[in-house]
């Protein structure tokens, strides 16, 4: 008897807790300002920055410079890059999240729809950046991020095995076969989940971009990957898969390992691979097109976002606009992450390395990865369909491709 009363009362208080927790986010920050002596002394300005492991040291250096000059306390919190997007979305509305986080430009649509980021006014500094990097962070005329790096894939060539850059896809396959290595060229896939990001340049060369683009380069949620061009690409995928030039069993690990061992003269990949190829003589070339149009890969821009709920917005903006946009800071980030910097001055300096210059050149022809939230619905159908066409599991490439288009349309609603 007594026990049930106790249980009931405990349950009641738990429910009260629930109610409290639910209502808490709105009033949380204001309530504790005076009351809680243990809260960080935000009055003098302090800054919390989320950074992933790769870039932590580089941001730390800039933060120390800023601390020394302004007396502001900068706390660098290391997060897993994969977690940042969801954690930022979940935590900012509770008033907890950071003041600044690193992130990729394609998160922008989701971030603005949830109101978790605030615009950054770059002012005249916008001109100091490579245009595509600022455009990628722009939505409705507002800039929401300070870009620091541009990443895209290109053709990495082992010059010992292939002295010439191939002009077309067929040239590449021919040169690869002539080199008499285990693979004529390497392009990664993620098993039967496919890898549409890495395959995208082939697709664009057939004139089948994923979404329609507006004149200013932004995407609108109308699919463009269907139609004759898309079907031509699908047919081509099926043929190449049957010939064995493309294989979904080549994972990232396998591609890197094979290229490092000299088992292929070519690999399609990004600057993040280069660390594994230190013993080889390399060149970075444009991706040869199998179709009639240029093979444009996606370009991804990484940058810093400012939280909409930041109590230190002034410090955050000051730190980003006046300290992280310097050539030293951007160069430090480049050295940590290997992606060409977004700041023109730093990018020019980094381009002294011909490999970096090669990636940058390809990036100049690339198209930004769509940042509209609709993109999320595309990925999961896209890759699997490509994989099933390449592996021959889908016996009719065109039919499979058309089904994919209609499935995506169904998911977009």
């Amino acid at each position: 008897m007594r026990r049930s009363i106790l249980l009931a009362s405990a349950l009641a208080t738990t429910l009260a807790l629930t109610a409290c927790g639910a209502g808490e986010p709105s009033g949380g920050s204001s309530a504790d300002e005076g009351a809680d002596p243990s809260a960080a002394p935000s009055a003098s300005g302090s800054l919390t920055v989320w950074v992933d492991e790769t870039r932590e040291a580089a941001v730390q250096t800039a933060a120390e410079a800023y601390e020394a000059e302004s007396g502001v306390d900068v706390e660098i919190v290391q997060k897993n890059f994969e977690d940042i997007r969801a954690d930022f979305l979940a935590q900012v509305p509770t008033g907890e999240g950071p003041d600044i986080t690193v992130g990729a430009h394609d998160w922008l649509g989701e971030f603005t729809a949830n109101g978790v980021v605030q615009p950054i006014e770059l002012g005249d500094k916008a001109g100091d950046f490579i245009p595509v990097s600022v455009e990628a962070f722009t939505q409705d005329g507002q800039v929401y991020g300070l870009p620091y790096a541009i990443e895209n894939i290109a053709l990495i060539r082992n010059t010992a095995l292939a002295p010439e850059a191939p002009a077309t896809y067929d040239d590449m396959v021919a040169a690869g076969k002539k080199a008499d290595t285990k693979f004529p060229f390497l392009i990664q896939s993620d098993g039967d989940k496919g890898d549409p990001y890495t395959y995208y340049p082939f697709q664009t060369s057939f004139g089948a971009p994923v979404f329609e683009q507006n004149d200013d380069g932004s995407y609108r949620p109308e699919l463009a990957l269907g139609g004759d061009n898309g079907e031509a690409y699908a047919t081509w995928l099926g043929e190449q898969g049957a010939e064995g030039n493309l294989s979904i069993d080549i994972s990232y690990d396998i591609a890197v390992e094979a290229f490092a061992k000299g088992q292929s003269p070519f690999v399609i990949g990004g600057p993040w691979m280069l660390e594994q190829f230190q013993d080889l003589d390399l060149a970075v070339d444009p991706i040869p097109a199998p179709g009639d149009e240029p093979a444009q890969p996606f370009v991804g821009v990484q940058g810093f976002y400012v939280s909409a709920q930041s109590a230190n917005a002034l410090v955050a903006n000051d730190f980003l606009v006046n300290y992280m946009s310097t050539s030293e800071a951007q160069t430090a980030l480049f050295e940590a992450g290997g992606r060409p910097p977004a700041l023109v001055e730093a990018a020019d300096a980094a381009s002294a390395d011909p490999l970096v210059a090669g990636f940058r050149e390809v990036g100049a022809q690339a198209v930004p990865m769509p940042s509209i939230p609709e993109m999320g619905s595309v990925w999961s159908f896209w890759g699997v369909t490509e994989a099933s066409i390449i592996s021959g599991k889908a016996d009719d490439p065109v039919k499979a491709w058309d089904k994919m288009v209609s499935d995506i349309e169904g998911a977009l609603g």
Partner: protein
Amino acid sequence: MSRARYKGADAGSGTFSGAGFAVKLVLIALVDALGVFGVLAAWRAGSWGILAAMVALLVAANWVYFTKRALPLKYILPGLAFLLVYQVYVIGYTGYVAFTNYGDGHNSTKEQAIDALLVQNERRVEGSPALPLTVVESGDGDLGFAVTRDGAVEVGTADEPLDAAPDATVSEGAVTAVPGWTVLDRQAVLQRQQEVTTLRVPVSDDAADGSVRTQDARTGYVFQPVLEYDEAADTMTDASTGVVYTPNDEGQFESADGETLPVGWRVTVGFENFATAFGDDRYAGPFVKILLWTFAFAVLSVVTTFALGMFLAMVFNDPRLRGRKVYRTLMILPYAMPGFLAALLWSGMLNKSFGVINQVLLGGAAIPWLTDPWLAKLSVLGVNLWLGFPYMFLICTGALQSLPGDVYEAARIDGAGKWRTWRSITMPLLLVATAPLLISSFAFNFNNFTLIKMLTGGGPRFDDASVPLGHTDILISMVYNVSGLDGSAPRDYGLASALSIVIFVVVGVISAIAFRQTRKLEELS
């Protein structure tokens, strides 16, 4: 955490006097002291929910440990307290979320949504220049901006539009002194940074000219709001088109012709999530297959891991066997590796063309371990067996120790063979001892999202379905997909919560029934 300690206090409950009672008194006093500290802190912070919970727990603790009547509770309460706070509350909260539209686009409170909309829709006036800016303070403490516009210094506050200040001193492009105003240094600006960033200084008496604001207290720009919020009427007005948006039941601002503003807020939506959960007919076909596979996967995982674990436990239970320690220790290894690593590792090892299983062990075979529907299922079960058998091995090794030896004696005297002894004595007794664990292992595998996600990602896909689901997807990974938690659709925590409540009910009912059955079994044997 302090509560764990008063376990010791039990040592002398009731009239039992001496050291035990003293220990109990000290521990309870300690708990009370910490509790009162917590209550006071909650009072100061104004957290009434926590205050009530703490008082209730404190009263319960004192009552339980000083009355003679609540004997069982003396032993259960410490664990129960943690259970209530960290598990029951969590379930309760998820239940609450199930009735809201928490998710993408409805991520925050209305206040925050309004702020976000206003911030996103305040635009820099096109072509307006960057203005070097200094924060200044008037005699009565109002903040203002001193900006350099077209070479001349102008000063203004929120109430007074920019006005020329010809006597200001400018050095190196920045205003360093303005008569009648105090120039704030960096520290002072930082002290009042929120005031600075929210300050808008009108350019002129005409609001249409916009106002100056700054984000870094170094440079100002002229901004013009596109959306305006009317607090009294609770409406948003688009300044350029004049369209008025009012809040709707869905937690969004909506115009008369049904157009909504992008950022919304969280509202309760009743049973809508539960209706949606069963409403999308694209999921109808895959659902049945996935449901069947989920049950098969969960049951087979338990059966295979238990069978192998039990077999090995019995094999190594012979005290004459040398090197038992080494065998046992090495067999714990899979359990000592983080699960996500194991799944990643196996997905590489099972790669059709390059994996070590096909290449080295099977001499270059091309078996599609992860891409054929049936083989993929087999692979998932096999990897789960590798991951799970050490657990069962441990449990069975422990449980074997408690089997009554005299029964074996009796069996031997009766002339029962090894197989017979195992079948009619060891196995039933082991089953009785481990049944609750098997049930909970079933429930764990029913929701074993990490394994499926890391190993196959649910693939290979169904060819005939229009949703991205596959042959090895289980219910929980389907929930991830339906509610967009995997990123393939807008995230909907409300829907995900509703679905997890539904799954919880299903698994809970099955487990409760199974549990009752095992109780019967226990009583029979």
